[in-house]
């Protein structure tokens, strides 16, 4: 069958008419398949939700027990059938529990990658290439300028700064789900074994990662026992990026602003945000990873969901691969 008949963009998100389900819908629907727990992909208020167990747990943590009507945990690699459509989840390497969703009917297979990355991440399973007729990819960093460096070298920058400025509080902005835990795990891998302080918004998710067997070392809440700012001198404090522009950050002595994000590749981005030490750590593919993945899967068609669609579509054209942008709305372009 024609791929457009199997899956197409509708106002509420990618829709499979035969199976009567949406993938990562941006508005409440009767039946939703969710790739991962980031809030622009996993929203509350759907009737039935199918996702990996971890993604369902994360949604429960973020939205509470009543986040949907009914939920069904799908194991990776398990084939389930929804109204005659064969559905399978495969690891996406983005954050804990993240999955690509493969949708197949009448011999046509479409893989919706969700958000994904190709490099090693100690906090989640690695991306698994799945052969398909249409590969639906994100393009958050879909410009040739994005070449994310080795994350170990990025963490070394932070460790060097801690030695160079031992009197300052090293405040790291990192998204609460995935990035924060990955930064902590990477720091531990680099041998940093001091306690790491976290913003309250990170507590439940860090607890959850640990309950899933991910070693984050000693974590303490970044709250003041007494009114003594010196407590945080020379420490690493991790919080959601917005928190550091907020009054919350005033509890720290001479904060050195750090931001862990793929956007930090661009100097002006760092400068605008007042970041002193940018760490290029991304949970998305950079340009070489995107193009390598498309080549590796060997698909004949690529659909691009969100991000810098035009450059990736152009690259596909040059490679002789049919490609088109889906112009989906509602996904956070700045999402990291």
């Amino acid at each position, binding site marked *: 069958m024609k791929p457009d008949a199997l899956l197409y963009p509708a106002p509420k998100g990618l829709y499979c008419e035969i199976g009567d389900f949406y993938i990562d819908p941006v508005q409440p629907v009767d039946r939703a398949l969710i790739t991962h727990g980031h809030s622009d992909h996993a929203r509350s208020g759907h009737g039935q939700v199918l996702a990996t167990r971890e993604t369902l747990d994360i949604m429960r943590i973020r939205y509470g027990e009543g986040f949907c009507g009914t939920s069904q945990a799908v194991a990776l690699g398990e084939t389930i059938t929804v109204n005659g459509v064969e559905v399978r989840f495969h690891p996406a390497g983005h954050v804990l529990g993240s999955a690509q969703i493969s949708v197949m009917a009448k011999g046509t297979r479409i893989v919706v990658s969700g958000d994904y990355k190709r490099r090693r991440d100690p906090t989640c399973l690695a991306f698994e290439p799945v052969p398909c007729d249409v590969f639906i990819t994100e393009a958050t960093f879909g*410009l*040739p*300028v*994005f*070449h994310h*460096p080795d994350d170990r070298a990025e963490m070394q*920058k932070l460790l060097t700064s801690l030695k*160079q*400025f031992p009197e300052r509080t090293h405040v790291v902005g990192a998204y609460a789900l995935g990035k924060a835990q990955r930064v902590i795990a990477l720091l531990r891998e680099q041998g940093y074994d001091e306690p790491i302080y976290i913003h309250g918004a990170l507590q439940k998710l860090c607890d959850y990662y640990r309950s899933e067997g991910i070693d984050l070392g000693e974590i303490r809440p970044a709250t003041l026992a007494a009114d003594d700012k010196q407590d945080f001198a020379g420490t690493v404090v991790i919080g959601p990026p917005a928190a*550091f*522009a*907020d*009054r*919350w*950050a*005033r509890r720290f002595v*001479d*904060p*050195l*602003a750090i931001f862990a994000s793929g956007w930090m*590749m*661009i*100097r*002006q981005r*760092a*400068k*605008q*945000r*007042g*970041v*002193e*030490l*940018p760490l290029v750590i991304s949970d998305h593919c950079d340009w070489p990873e995107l193009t390598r993945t498309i080549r590796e899967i060997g698909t004949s068609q690529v659909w691009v969901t969100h991000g*810098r669609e*035009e*450059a990736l579509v*152009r*690259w596909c054209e*040059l490679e002789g691969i049919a490609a088109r942008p889906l112009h989906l709305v509602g996904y956070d372009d700045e999402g990291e």
Partner: protein
Amino acid sequence: MKAFAELLDRLVLTPQRNAKIRLLADYFVTAPDPDRGYALAAIAGTLSLATVKPAMIRDLLLERMDEVLFRYSYDYVGDLAETVSLVWEPPEGVVPDDIPLGDAIETLQTTGRANVRSIVRDMLDRLDTSARFAFLKLVTGGLRIGVSAKLAKQALAEMGSKDVTEIETLWHGLAPPYLPLFQWLAGEADRPVLSTPAVFHSVMLATPVGEGDLDGLDPKDFAAEWKWDGIRVQLANIGGTRRLYSRSGDEISSAFPDVLEAADFSGVIDGELLVGGTARTNRATRTFSDLQQRLNRKTVSHKMLDEYPAFIRAYDVLFSGETDVRAEDFLARRAMLGDLVERASPQHFDLSPLVPFSSWEELDQLRSEPPDPVIEGIMLKRLDSPYTAGRAKGPWFKWKRAAYNVDAVLMYAQRGHGKRSSYYSDFTFGVWTEIDGMETLVPVGKAYFGFTDAELEILDRFVRDNTTERFGPVRAVRAEPDFGFVLEVAFEGLNRSTRHKSGVAMRFPRIARLRQDKLPHEADRLATLQAMIESKS
């Protein structure tokens, strides 16, 4: 090049002066020779390197990249060197290593025009992203990292636990890659001995007169001079070599050929560089705005020389002929200086006149109502003081005239850095003017100090509670005739500006007081500021 590139990346994003100095000093300690010397030269602006045109870099890139993809990338990043550094992909099999900075520079300096293209391509292939950026900025001559030569010298002083005046004194006698300098700073060699004459000598600085500073001092022990609103310079002519330096030791000779040409005496003098006529030619001294027309130029046109003639109002002498006279007292030096100026070109040199006074009260009166608009206060110099480098308290005082004040309305606020990263602490303020029949606020300046911590809390709260629009880290706040925040702004002077919409630019603005007792419509008008400029010229 990697270490240098990392240093640049950090410096660009580090706002605090002390943190910059530490980053620089740490680099100078750890980087090998001659890399650190070339890095110093690149930062201090003393590196001579034939530059490569941006068009060539673009061509090199398009040899191997799709033009459409390049355009998308360039549009997104906005800076050519950064775009190229990011999108550049070495050919299959070439793994980036590192080219020492010194090697890269020496290679470029010895490469003929014909080979530049292939050398640059080869280097881009061998460097990693961040080093490529540093390299491209170096070869295209666009290294702007917010670090002055002065700051670099401060870092050198820190590295070798020396006084910065020692570095400044040596600076112009040395050249990249500064091997003897670093050996001395690292304690491996003696202080370099200079062969080049006419080097810069650190200047003697004054301390401001503070509350009670003059109590118990006898006016008879001091001479007073007007403090002119120009720039402090040192003019040297030793053994036929003539140089003009700013007070921090930056050479500015090329911008003032008229003054240098007229300096046909032998020695080193200290004075104020001004534009206009000398007292000896009986013509008026012109404003700092006029002097600015002559500053920061590599070459000067005849028209500029005619319209903005420069001269030096001399106030001290360090070397008379080749004799160091800095140990002589003020009066003895002044006598020598008087002789020297007397014989020099009347159009280009005059002697800073002494201001007679008999009591501090009288001097205070003179300070507040100076006889010339280009005077910004009084200098006080002890008659028995030798000329000593640096800012010791006692021998020289400066006593400025009162600052100017206006009431302005807070319009925009930007988040600060470091300690202030969670505060809106950079404030743009405006005054009223009529545009198309409407009362409108036009921005006239920006200030980020002058307030106490408690006042900052109040301002920050106002900004957060009254934001009307956000542009990245900047917020626009409510500023209406009957609702807003009035600030009393103090500043040292006003210049005309073509860059600001209001047409005026403030010098050294700061927040003097929060005027919560006033409503925005009571704030000052642009016409008031314009009149202040008019009265000066």
